[in-house]
C-alpha cells in the first residue's frame, strides 16, 4: 500500500435505467493533477457516469473511489475535496452573485476568497445582480465559481463552456489552466474539440455507455489515422459529435 491512490478510480461501473444500460462496465483512473476529458454524443452515458462519480447516483455494480474514499459512504469527506459543476443546475434566483458566493463559501472550512472567485470567472462587475437576471453565460460562469468555492483538489465540470461566447470560453480555459498549474485534478465533460485538445492530458471517448478509446488527443488522432480529433471521434465511435447548443 505504498503507492498513493489516484484522484479518481472507477472499477467496472454499471448503471441501467429499465432495460437501457446507461453505463456499461466502465473502468478508469485519473491521476492526481491530471486533466481528463470525456467526449461522447448525447445519451452516451457521460452525465450518468459523472453523477455516480459525484455520489449523486448509486451504481448498480462496480465502485468509485475518490482518493480512496467512497462518495456514498464517505460523503462528508468527499464533499470537502470534490467540487462539482452540474449541467443545468439553477440557483436561488432572487439572490445576488455575491450572496450566492457567500453562501457556498460558508459550507467549506477553508474557502477561496470571494474576490478571487469573482475575478476568476469574470463576474467582478455583477456582484449585486440577482441570479435570475444574469445571462445564461453568466449563470454558467457563476456555477463554475461555486464549484471552486471550497478550493477543491478535484473538480468535475459537466459541459464547461456550453452556452458561453468565445471570449468567456477563452477566459474559462485560462481559469482551468490556472487550476491545472495548481495541481488540481480535473474531469472535464465536453462537446468542444478545441477545448479538449487544449486542456486535457488524456481523453476518454464514450459511446453507448462504454469507453471506446482512452489516450492523449494526439494519440487518438494517430490511432484513428485521422486529421484531427473531430475526425478521430467519428472514425472511432462511428458517430458525429453533435453540437449541444
Amino acid at each position, binding site marked *: *500500500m505504498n503507492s*498513493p*491512490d489516484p484522484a479518481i478510480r472507477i472499477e467496472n461501473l454499471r448503471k441501467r435505467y429499465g432495460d437501457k444500460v446507461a453505463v456499461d462496465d466502465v473502468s478508469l483512473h485519473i491521476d492526481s493533477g491530471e486533466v481528463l476529458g470525456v467526449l461522447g454524443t448525447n445519451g452516451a452515458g457521460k452525465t450518468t457516469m459523472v453523477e455516480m462519480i*459525484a*455520489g*449523486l447516483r448509486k451504481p448498480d455494480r462496480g465502485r468509485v*473511489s475518490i*482518493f*480512496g*474514499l467512497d462518495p456514498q459512504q*464517505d460523503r*462528508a*469527506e*468527499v*464533499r*470537502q*475535496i*470534490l467540487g*462539482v459543476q*452540474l449541467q*443545468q*443546475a*439553477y*440557483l*436561488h*434566483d*432572487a*439572490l445576488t452573485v455575491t*450572496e*450566492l458566493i*457567500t*453562501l*457556498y463559501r*460558508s*459550507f*467549506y*472550512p477553508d474557502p477561496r476568497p470571494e474576490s478571487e472567485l469573482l475575478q476568476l470567472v469574470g463576474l467582478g462587475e455583477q456582484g449585486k445582480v440577482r441570479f435570475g437576471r444574469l445571462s445564461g453565460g453568466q449563470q454558467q460562469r457563476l456555477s463554475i465559481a*461555486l464549484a471552486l468555492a*471550497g478550493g477543491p483538489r478535484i473538480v468535475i465540470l459537466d459541459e464547461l463552456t456550453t452556452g458561453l461566447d468565445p471570449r468567456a470560453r477563452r477566459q474559462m480555459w485560462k481559469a482551468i489552466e490556472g487550476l491545472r498549474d495548481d495541481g488540481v485534478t480535473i474531469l472535464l465533460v465536453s462537446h468542444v474539440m478545441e477545448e479538449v485538445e487544449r486542456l486535457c492530458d488524456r481523453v476518454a471517448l464514450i459511446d453507448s455507455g462504454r469507453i471506446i478509446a482512452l489516450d492523449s488527443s494526439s494519440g487518438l488522432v494517430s490511432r484513428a489515422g485521422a486529421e484531427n480529433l473531430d475526425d478521430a471521434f467519428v472514425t472511432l465511435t462511428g458517430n458525429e459529435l453533435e453540437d449541444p447548443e
Partner: protein
Amino acid sequence: MSIAVEAHRPGAGAWLSLIQCEAKMVARDTAGLVVPIGLPLLILVMSASAATDEVVANGRTALDVFVLPLVLTLVISTIGIINMPSFLAYYRRAGILRRLSVTPASPAMVLVAQVVVSVIQAVIGITAALAVAVLIFDANPPVQPGAALGIFVLAMAAMYALGMVVAAVAPTPNSAVAIGLIVFFALAALGGLFGGRAALPEPVAAVGEWLPFGATVQALSAVWAGFAVEPVHLISLGVTTVLGFTVAAVLFRWD
C-alpha cells in the same frame, strides 16, 4: 490507502448564512407576503368593527374570543401550507436541492432553514395582527398567555408538517401552490373561516374541529376566554404533526 480528510460538517456560519439567504428569498417574493400578512389583517379589520363589545367571558369580547383566533390561525396556516411548500417545490424543480447535495451542506439544511424563516415570518404576522387588534380595536390579551404560546408552537408544527407533505408530493412548483391552496381552503372552510362553524351542518362542523385549522381556532379561542382546552384539539394538532412529518420524510423526493 485513502488520504486523510477531516470530515468537516458545515457549522454555525453555514446555518446562519443559509437562514439569511432563505429569509431574503421570502422577503423578495413580495406577492407571497400578501396572503399570510395581508389577508389576516384584512379579515381582522373587516370583522373587528362588526364584532360587538359584549363580554363573552372573563372580560374578553367577541373580538378576542372569536375573531382573533381565526385571524392568527390564518397567519400560521397560510405560511405553513401554501408559502413554504411552494419554495421547496421550486428548489427541487430548479435543481437547487441537487446542487446543494454535491456540497458539504445537505439539502435537508434548506428544509430546516425554510422552517426557521417560516417561523420568523409567522411571528411577524402574528405580532402585526395583534398590534393592530390591540391598538386600534381595543382587543385583550389571552387569559392564559402561556397556554396560548404553547398552542401557537403546536399549531405551527402541525401546519408546517402539512406543508412538508404538500412539498413532498407536489411534482412542480405550480402544483405545490394548487395543492397547498386546496388543502388550506378545505381545512379553513371546515374550520369555520367562511361564516363560522354555526353555519355548517353539525357533522361537518364536528369533522372540521378535529382537523388542524379548526382545532387551532378552537384551542386559541378557549385560552383567550380562559376556558380549558379540549383534549381532542391538542390531539388533532399532535397527530397531524407526527403523521405529517413521517409521511413527508418517507415521500420527499430530492430531485
